[in-house]
């Protein structure tokens, strides 16, 4: 009798197992469905708009016709500008944390600061950029101010991934460098950094990807509604793809849908290419790693 009840108990447990498993499968499926759905939806609706002309000409008729060249160029400028400031600073800070920082209260403070930076809402970065770069440093609404704002937002990502990439390089590499008479910096520059490079690069690209797609930080630091010509100096304001999408989908009445879809597709491709190259660098490096 007791044998039989334990038998049914097992059956119940197994049934629960089955239901649970099915549920987890369904949940995961519904988490990932939107990703594919969104990409398919944008590509299907946006692809017909993409012509050489659309990518390389200026907008006309209050942006209701023509191309989106100034927005594309602006996003390129902002991404490059962000890289110029955030990559050297972020990588150096990552090197400090991985190779130099002692275990003390100051290092603890640095870590708290990085965690705090990573959590600050993007629109608050925009406020900071407005207060510091646009008004206090008098850079005005400009590519320079927007790039500086975006680079500060990107910094925590680059610092953390650089540190992580350096930490996975085995300790024996450093010991061997030192035993061969190399100074600490020589060892880092010639041996450790090159080994960690794919990891650092992945982090840098993912950080810049986020910067390229952000709207809120550039709303009041450098983005402009419409520009009849391309920006000619870092102190000019610029159009940018994310802001352009925001404007044409919410602020311009009678905006043709195909131009909206086309612009969104261009931004999506821009971001996905960065994403894929980061992922590819990482997988390839993992496969080729000798240690």
């Amino acid at each position, binding site marked *: 009798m007791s044998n039989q009840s334990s038998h049914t108990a097992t059956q119940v447990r197994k049934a*629960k*197992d089955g239901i649970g498993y099915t*549920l*987890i499968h369904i*949940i*995961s499926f*519904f*988490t990932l469905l939107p*990703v594919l759905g*969104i990409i398919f939806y*944008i590509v299907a609706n946006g692809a017909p708009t993409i012509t050489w002309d659309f990518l390389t000409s200026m907008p006309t008729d209050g942006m209701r016709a023509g191309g989106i060249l100034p927005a594309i160029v602006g996003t390129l400028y902002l991404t490059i500008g962000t890289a110029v400031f955030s990559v050297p*600073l972020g990588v*150096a*800070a990552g090197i*400090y944390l991985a190779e*130099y920082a002692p275990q003390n209260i100051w290092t603890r*403070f*640095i870590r*708290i600061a990085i*965690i*705090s*930076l*990573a*959590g*600050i*809402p993007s*629109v*608050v970065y*925009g*406020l*900071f950029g*407005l*207060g*510091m770069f646009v*008004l206090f440093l008098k850079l005005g609404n400009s590519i320079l101010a927007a790039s500086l704002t975006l680079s*500060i937002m990107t*910094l925590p990502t680059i*610092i953390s991934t650089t540190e992580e990439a350096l930490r996975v390089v085995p300790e024996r590499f450093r010991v061997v460098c030192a035993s061969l008479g190399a*100074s*600490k*910096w*020589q060892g880092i520059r010639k041996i450790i950094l090159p080994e960690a490079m794919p990891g650092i690069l992945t982090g840098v690209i*993912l950080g810049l990807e986020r910067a*390229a*797609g*952000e*709207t*809120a930080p550039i*709303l009041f630091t450098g983005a402009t509604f419409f520009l009849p010509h391309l920006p000619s100096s870092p102190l000019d304001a610029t159009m940018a793809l*994310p802001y352009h999408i*925001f404007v044409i*989908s*919410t602020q311009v009445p009678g905006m043709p849908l195909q131009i909206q879809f086309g612009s*969104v597709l261009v*931004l*999506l491709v821009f*971001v996905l290419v*960065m*994403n894929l190259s980061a*992922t590819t660098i990482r997988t390839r490096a993992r496969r080729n790693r000798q240690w």
Partner: protein
Amino acid sequence: MKDKVITRIIKIAGFSSIIIVLMIFYFLLKEGLPTLGEVALSDLFTTRWYPIEDYFGILPLFSGSLLVTFISIAIALPFGIGTAVYIAEIAPARVKEILKPLIEILAGIPSVVLGFIGIVFLSPTLRETFNLPTGLTAFTGALLLALISVPTIVSVAEDALNAVPQSYREASYALGVTRWQTIWQVTLPAARSGVITAVMLGISRTLGETMAVMMVTGNAPTMLQGIQSIFKPTRTMTATIASEMGEVASGSTHYHVLFFIGIVLFLFSLIINIISSHFSEKNRKEKEQVV
């Protein structure tokens, strides 16, 4: 000699994040604190936000943010944790290799693109399905925000699950416990601190998100009125800053109040992130004790 200079530079870079956080805080205070001299606290904490007539009650924005964040996390939590469990505990290696990049792609889709999807697809669909007067509601925003916070929740929770020693699961199986029960009663509880971190970071991400919410929640700063508010337009703190900062004169009361809201957001994110880093630290220490 050269080594010394470089080491010095790296050290300064290392400390830069502390300086940046302090600068951000300084500039937010500088532009936001004058609020307290211009608007009485009793007026600030009222329910009417109508800046054109000098009504600066921030409670509706506050309740808007809370409402949207709450619904969004309620949706993202089961999907995020479920997917993390699937990736860490169930999925075969080959499926994992497809799922993880997909999650990363979702994390990389700019919020303005999601906002666009919200306008052209999600909100009309919701309006027709639920027969609403408008599809631009708190719920629409919350759905998009769930998409934005899911990647954060998945990746942090998955790391936490992976950090649970294999011996826990094996001991559980050896006692005749099924895999499903092991997940719920052994692995997830063991990864508890990490899972809490995941949820807190998800909340922080949701609370700070700007563009997607601004585009689809209908921009109506109204107070929370019970359960039906879910399907009504609302307005978050972030969206208020983003949509109004462009039109105010710098130095005006309205300008100061928007920075004041920025301070509130900054402090919120700071608290959430520091608490969650405490939990992830705890998670790490628990793991070290076992090993």
